């Protein structure tokens, strides 16, 4: 992101886990860091883990929550009120597929009424124009529509869902007709990275104001499918060049946010813009997490919104306190001049690869695990025998991946 900040306006990207560490602004550059540490600006609401798509890089946990444990309408509405009171500014209604909740309009209505900026993160395939119009009427502010690839057949294969593309094109048109801004989110990996340039062109054609070239981040389902998803460094560099060219070509037409795969980044990414600093995540059953992947850290325990107020969990919850700030750090993070820039990287990745979430993320060149970790990407991305996807479905992780030759 080579943008120069405007003279009078500073900008905060939503501090998603995957945000590029280079040039991304801090989560909340307000005048009082102590205050900023006290209130998240964004809240990610996983309304349900139900989804018609089965993308093998889904950011949901491998152990999906079932429909019968989901929060009720009234409970989600209460979450919205509590969030606004705490100081949350934006909510991201996600899933699974959030439109699988029949009460989505009622949740959006309350969120809009209490002044939250509402963002719907959808695959679009089950939306109707009528439903979308009702959501707009309820106060929806923005739609983020995912695409799996620009080639319809490949997209169908990746999502294990037939005919998604035509539906998505239609949904994009409805979003524009109804006067809402549109973001296209394109998860990028080995099996579609050759289409990055076309993906951006396609987003422009759809009338999107923003496109996310979101290189897959390797947690949960994506970690399970890493050997089928990891692009080569060469492919990544080529895609990065296409993004730079598109930024020049489409300046003032579309905003392109590129999320870098940290296997090929220079420094680790600032996990969530700092653990428990800018964003809070709520699971379908009401568990309150500092990051959507946090449950992969088996040493942490999480509070539920049904048992304890949101503000109390945010301020005092054990999982939030565990890695907030920098005092939990060990060497080499503790004495590192970048410790308040990247916060030692990703806690989930540190746990998954070293067994201790307080260790330096292996994405950092100062981690003793770094060379070994990079070698994994090198080997897997060049393996001509690409394993079959383990598709995202309840119990899907149990399936043994098979191999076949794609070349």
């Amino acid at each position, binding site marked *: 992101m080579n943008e120069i900040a*405007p003279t*009078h306006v500073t900008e905060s990207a939503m501090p998603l886990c995957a945000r590029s560490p280079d040039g991304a602004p801090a989560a909340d550059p307000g005048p009082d860091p102590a205050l900023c540490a006290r209130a998240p600006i964004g809240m990610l609401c996983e309304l349900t883990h139900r989804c018609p798509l089965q993308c093998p890089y889904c950011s949901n946990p491998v152990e999906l929550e079932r429909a019968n444990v989901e929060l009720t309408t009234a409970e989600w509405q209460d979450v919205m009120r509590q969030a606004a009171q705490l100081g949350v500014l934006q909510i991201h209604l996600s899933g699974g597929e959030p439109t699988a909740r029949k009460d989505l309009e009622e949740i959006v209505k309350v969120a809009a009424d209490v002044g939250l900026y509402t963002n719907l993160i959808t695959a679009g395939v089950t939306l109707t124009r009528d439903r979308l119009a009702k959501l707009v009427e309820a106060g929806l*502010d*923005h739609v983020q529509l995912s695409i799996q690839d620009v080639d319809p057949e490949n997209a169908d294969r990746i999502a294990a869902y037939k005919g998604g593309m035509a539906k998505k*094109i239609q949904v994009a048109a409805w979003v524009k007709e109804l006067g809402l801004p549109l973001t296209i989110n394109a998860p990028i990996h080995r099996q579609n990275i050759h289409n990055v340039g076309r993906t951006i062109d396609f987003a422009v054609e759809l009338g999107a104001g*923003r496109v996310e070239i979101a290189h897959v981040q390797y947690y949960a389902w994506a970690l399970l499918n890493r050997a089928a998803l990891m692009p080569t460094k060469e492919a990544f560099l080529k895609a990065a060049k296409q993004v730079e060219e598109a930024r020049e070509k489409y300046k003032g037409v579309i905003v392109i946010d590129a999320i870098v795969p940290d296997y090929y980044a220079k420094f680790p990414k600032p996990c969530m813009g700092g653990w428990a600093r800018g964003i809070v995540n709520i699971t379908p059953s009401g568990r309150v997490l500092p990051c959507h992947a946090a449950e992969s850290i088996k040493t942490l325990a999480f509070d539920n919104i049904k048992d304890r107020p949101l503000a109390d969990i945010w301020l005092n919850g054990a999982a939030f306190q565990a890695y907030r700030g920098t005092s939990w750090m060990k060497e080499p993070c503790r004495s590192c001049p970048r410790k308040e820039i990247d916060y030692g990287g990703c806690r989930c990745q540190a746990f998954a690869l070293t067994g201790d979430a307080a260790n330096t993320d292996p994405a950092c060149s100062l981690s003793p695990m770094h060379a070994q970790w990079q070698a994994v990407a090198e080997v897997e991305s060049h393996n001509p025998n690409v394993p079959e996807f383990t598709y995202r479905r309840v119990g899907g992780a149990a399936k043994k991946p098979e191999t076949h030759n794609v070349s």
Partner: protein
Amino acid sequence: MAETSEQPKSAPTRLIVAGDTVLALPRHIKLRHDPGRGRWIILAPERVFNPDETAVEVLKLLDGQRSVNDIAETLSQQYQAPLEVVKDDILAMLQDLTDKGVLVKAERGATP
């Protein structure tokens, strides 16, 4: 993909902000005060912008009627600053926000 893949009638182009440009905040961009943090913010898709006092002054004057020149004149009188300096300063800011989709060309006579 019948009837779904209609291309936009004309390809979108970058809006170059000039003195006579009339800008507005589109409906989905929200300039509001954030009481919890005691500051003004602009809420945009997956972004929060933090405008300083000058930027807030400028943005509040974007009523869908005033041009950039009109706003520069108002502020130059208000702050007793040279008109050209004020104009160059706010032009740069407004171009940047336009490039980021925060501002659009106002439809004359329409309320933003």
